[in-house]
């Protein structure tokens, strides 16, 4: 069953505080968070969060298409490298 709409999205309060402080300071920094369960809100777009995966903080650049997802979805807890082959990386 999905979450009731009247409750609004869940975000840990400290994540909101940290994000607000980072935005006000205007500095280019990684906001370290442990809350994988928090929902990505529109005011997080453009910020870089370091989302803990149980071992280290994985940098997550928040973009518009990530709104509504949870932070934990972008910080896998298991490592699988695979093969590089012809895979490409794009600088955005």
């Amino acid at each position, binding site marked *: 069953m999905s979450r009731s709409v009247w409750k609004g999205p869940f975000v840990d309060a400290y994540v909101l505080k940290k994000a607000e402080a980072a935005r006000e300071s205007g500095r280019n920094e990684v906001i370290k968070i442990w809350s994988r369960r928090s929902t990505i809100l529109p005011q997080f777009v453009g910020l870089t969060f370091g989302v803990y995966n149980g071992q280290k903080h994985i940098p997550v650049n928040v973009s518009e298409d990530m709104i509504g997802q949870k932070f934990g979805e972008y910080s896998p807890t298991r490592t699988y490298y695979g093969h590089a082959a*012809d*895979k490409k990386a794009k600088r955005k």
Partner: protein
Amino acid sequence: MTEQICVGAIAGSYGVRGEVRLKSFCAIPEDIEAYSPLSNEDGTQSYTLVLVRAIKNGFTARVGGVETKEQADALKGLRLFAPRDRLPSLPDDEYYHTDLMGLEVYDTGGTLLGTVKTVQNHGASDLLEITVPGHSSTILLPFTLAAVPTVDLASGRIIADPPEGLF
């Protein structure tokens, strides 16, 4: 000799008519056929591939000169390589993982930060995994224009402006 890139592997024979089970490591799995003929690791043997159909975890394929199940069985475990120069050229700000791996990363002041180990993508932006000299753990650097302003493949170096708190 140009750099060889592993693009697939033969997992074994398929059926009794000399077809093989092929695992493709390419971003678009069907592209492995476009890089044919492929070679083995030391480049002494060449193999032409024709994909037959998709199966679970890969494809069935016909390999040039392989007509029987016994010949196909003998290829089990063979890793297939394509020369780097056979990969199509890419637009600006797009790079092959194989080109980025091994590049040295310097900060804007010219200090060596480390070497690119792998390139990862967990759904957000691409990340460069950097091995830092003197440390056992690795650092993940977002592959963005802000964090990585310069990629110089010719000189084998990357200039990075990492966010605070990353290194």
